[in-house]
C-alpha cells in the first residue's frame, strides 16, 4: 500500500514539474543568427566569446547559407525571424527589395573582413594549377565548341586534361556549394564569369545581350561533374580527405584550419595564403558581411553588446581571435568605418 502511494506521489510530482516548466514566461532572450556557412566559424567564435564574457545568453546560430539566411531574414520583422544573417557576399538588390517589401526596412550592414575562395584537393594528390578559363570550361553547363566557332555545346569535357593539356588526366569531380550559398554566388561571379570573359565572342555578348551572357557564364553543369554538397563546408573537407581525386570549393578559413589534410590549388599564378589574399594578389577574394535588423536592437537582449564584441579589435583586428580562425582582417580605416556604422546603427540604402 505504501509503495503504491509513494510511487503515485512521485509520478504526480514529476508530471507537475514537467508541466509547469512549459510556461517559462518571457520573450526570446537570446540572439538568433542564420546565414552563411563561411561566416559560421567566425560567428560561432564571437558568439561563444560573447556568451562567456557577458551576462547575456549565447546566441543561437544555424548555418543555412547566405541565400537561405537572407530569405529567412527578409521574411518579416517579427520576433520569430532571425536578428542577424551572415553573408559571404553583399546583399543583392532583389533581396533588399524583398526585405523592404516585407517590412524589414532598416538593415545595418557590417563588413567583417575578407575571405578567399579556394579550390582545394587532398594532400595525397599533386597540387593543381588552374586559371579562370580552365574553371569555366570545366564547370560551365554549355561551353563553346572545342573545334572553334561561335556556337555552344553541352560541356563535353570529362577529365582535366581535356580542358587543358597541362592538367592531370583525372576525372573532373568538384564538390561545391548549392545556390543557397554565398560562396557559390561569389565563385560564379569571380571565377566562372572571369573565365567566360576570356573568350572574346562571349565577352562581346555582355554588351549586346546581358541576360544571355549571364546564363552562359553563370550556369554550372549538372551531369555529375559538379556535386552540390549542402551548407556544410566541413563536410566538403572531410569528403576531400577521403577522395583524393576530387576538388572542393570553400572559404579560405577552412583551408587554414585543415592545412594538414587539404591543399589549395594555385590560381591565377598565386597560392591561396593569408598574405596573398590580404595583399589582394589572389584573384578569388571576396568580403564577408553580416546584416542586422535594426528593429530588433533594443528588443532582443544583448544586440548592441554583441555588435560591439564582433567589431572590437580584440575580435576582428590584425591580431584578433578571428584572424586565428582564418579571417583576413580589413585595413584599419575600413574597420573603423564599419565599427562606427555598427555602433550608430547606420541604415543600409541600396540603389540599383
Amino acid at each position, binding site marked *: 500500500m505504501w509503495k503504491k502511494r509513494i510511487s503515485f506521489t512521485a509520478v504526480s510530482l*514529476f*508530471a507537475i514539474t*514537467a*508541466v509547469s*516548466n*512549459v510556461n*517559462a514566461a518571457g520573450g526570446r532572450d*537570446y540572439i538568433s543568427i542564420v546565414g552563411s556557412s563561411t561566416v*559560421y*566559424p567566425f560567428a*560561432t*567564435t564571437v*558568439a*561563444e566569446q560573447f*556568451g*562567456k*564574457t*557577458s551576462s547575456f*545568453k*549565447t546566441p*543561437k*546560430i*544555424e*548555418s543555412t547559407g547566405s541565400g537561405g539566411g537572407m530569405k529567412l531574414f527578409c521574411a518579416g520583422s517579427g520576433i*520569430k525571424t532571425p536578428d542577424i544573417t551572415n553573408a559571404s557576399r553583399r546583399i543583392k538588390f532583389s533581396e533588399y527589395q524583398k526585405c523592404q517589401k516585407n517590412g524589414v526596412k532598416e538593415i545595418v550592414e557590417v563588413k567583417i573582413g575578407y575571405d578567399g575562395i579556394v579550390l582545394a584537393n587532398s*594532400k595525397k594528390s599533386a597540387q593543381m594549377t588552374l586559371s579562370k578559363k580552365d574553371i569555366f570550361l570545366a564547370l560551365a553547363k554549355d561551353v563553346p565548341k572545342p573545334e572553334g566557332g561561335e556556337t555552344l555545346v553541352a560541356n563535353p569535357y570529362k577529365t582535366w586534361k581535356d580542358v587543358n593539356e597541362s592538367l592531370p588526366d583525372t576525372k573532373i569531380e568538384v564538390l561545391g556549394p548549392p545556390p543557397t550559398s554565398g560562396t557559390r554566388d561569389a565563385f560564379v561571379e569571380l571565377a566562372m564569369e572571369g573565365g567566360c570573359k576570356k573568350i572574346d565572342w562571349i565577352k562581346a555578348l555582355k554588351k549586346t545581350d546581358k541576360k544571355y551572357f549571364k546564363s552562359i557564364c553563370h550556369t554550372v553543369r549538372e551531369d555529375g561533374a559538379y556535386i552540390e554538397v549542402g551548407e*556544410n563546408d*566541413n*563536410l566538403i*573537407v*572531410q569528403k576531400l580527405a577521403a577522395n583524393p581525386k576530387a576538388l572542393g570549393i570553400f572559404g579560405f578559413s*577552412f583551408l587554414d*584550419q*585543415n*592545412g*594538414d*589534410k587539404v591543399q589549395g590549388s594555385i590560381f591565377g599564378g598565386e597560392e591561396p595564403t593569408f598574405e596573398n589574399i590580404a595583399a589582394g594578389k589572389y584573384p578569388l577574394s571576396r568580403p564577408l558581411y553580416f546584416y542586422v535588423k535594426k528593429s530588433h536592437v533594443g528588443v532582443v537582449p544583448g544586440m548592441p553588446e554583441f555588435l560591439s564584441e564582433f567589431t572590437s579589435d*580584440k575580435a576582428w583586428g590584425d*591580431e584578433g*581571435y578571428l584572424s*586565428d580562425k582564418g579571417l583576413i582582417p580589413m585595413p584599419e580605416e575600413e574597420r573603423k568605418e564599419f565599427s562606427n556604422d555598427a555602433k550608430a546603427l547606420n541604415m543600409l540604402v541600396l540603389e540599383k
Partner: protein
Amino acid sequence: MTVSKKESTMDRVNKGLAKRYRREKWFRLSGLGAIILSIGFLALLFLSIISNGWTAFQQTEMLLDIHFDAQEFDVDNLSAANYGVLVKDGMRTLFPEVKERRNKRKLYKLVSSGASYILQDMVEQDTTIIGSTQKIWLPADDEVDMFMKGNISREVAENNRRLSDKQISWIDRLAADGRLKKRFNTVFFTAGDSREPELAGIRGAVAGSLFTLAVTLLLSFPMGVATAVYLEEFAPKNRWTDLVEVNINNLAAVPSIVFGLLGLAVFLNFFGLPRSAPLVGGLVLTLMTLPTIIIASRASLKSVPPSIREAALGVGASKMQTITHHILPLAMPGMMTGTIIGMAQALGETAPLLMIGMVAFIVDVPGGVTDPATVLPVQIYLWADSPERAFMERTSAAIMVLLAFLIFMNGIAVFLRRKFERRW
C-alpha cells in the same frame, strides 16, 4: 534377388553417409560462423569506438605563472579586463626568447583560448588575487593535447601536421619542466558545446536529451497505455478497429525521418512552435514511440489469460474493476518494458530532429523545454562532422556515454522482464 536389392540400398545409404555428415558439419559450422561474425561486428564496433574515445576523458593541462597585474583591472567592471593578455604574458615569461610576431602567435596558440574565461571566473570569485602571481593549471590547446596523446606524429613532414617543429620543441621543453600534465577531463561533463574541442562538453546535449525524453514519456506513456486498454478491452471488434490496428502497426515501421517531416510541417509551420526546442523534439518522438508502446501494451494485455478475467467477473467485479485490479497489474511489467524500449529508441534517434532545427550551434545548457537545445545523438553528428582531430575522440566519448545510457535502460527492461515474466 530381394536381398541383393536391399543391400544395394543400404550400400548407397552408407556410401552417402560420410558426405551427408560432412555437409551436416559444414552447415552447422556456417551457422556458428554467422553468429560469431555478427557478434564480431558488435565487438569491432565497440572496440573501435572505445579505442578512439577513451583518451577524451583526459585533457592536457599546462602550468602557467599568471601575474594578475593590478593595473589591468577595474574593480567595478571586472569583465572589461583583457584576460587574454594575462595568459599571453604568462606564456611570454616562460619563453622570453621568442620575439618575432609570427612566432609569438604560434606560442600563444599552445594554450587554449578558454584559459581567459577561467582566469575571469577566478578573479570574479576572489578579487584578492589581483596584484599577486599565481601558479595555475590551464587547459592546453587541442593540438597540444593531440600531440601529447600521440595523435600527431613527429615523423610527418612539417607542413603536413598542425604543429610546427618550433611548437613541438616548446612543448617538449614544457613537458620536461613538468608543466604539462594529463588530467581527468571534467569539462567534458560540465560544459556545453564549443568551437574549441578542449572546451566542448556534453552537458547541454544531455540536458536537451533529458527534456526531450521527459516530454516524450509524459505524453506517450499515458496515451499509449490508455489507447491500448481501450482498443484491447473496450473497443468493439469491427472493420473500423481493424483499420486502426493496421494503421498502428504500419506507423511503427514508418521511417523516422518521415516523422521529422511531419514535425516540420505541422508543429513548426502550422502551429508556429519554436525551432530547436525540446518541446517540439519531444512531440515528434512521441508520435514515433506511441505505436511501439501501444503494440507492446496490447501484447502484454493479451498475454493475461482469460481465466483471470473470468474469475474476476465471476466474483462480481465490474469490467473496469477487472481491468484496474487484475489485468493492469499483471500487464504492467510488459507495458513498462515496451515503454523503456521505446524511450531507448527515442534517445538514440537523430534523423527527425535534424528536420526541426535541433542542429544549431548552442552553447548554453537549456533550462526548460522551450529553450533551444540539441540532443546527444545530434551532438555526436555535429562533432563527427567537425574538422578538428580532437573532436573525433570526443565524438567517440560522447557515443560511449550515449551507449551507456542505452545499455542501462535496456538493462532495466531486461530486469523487469526477467523479474515479472510469468508463464501461465
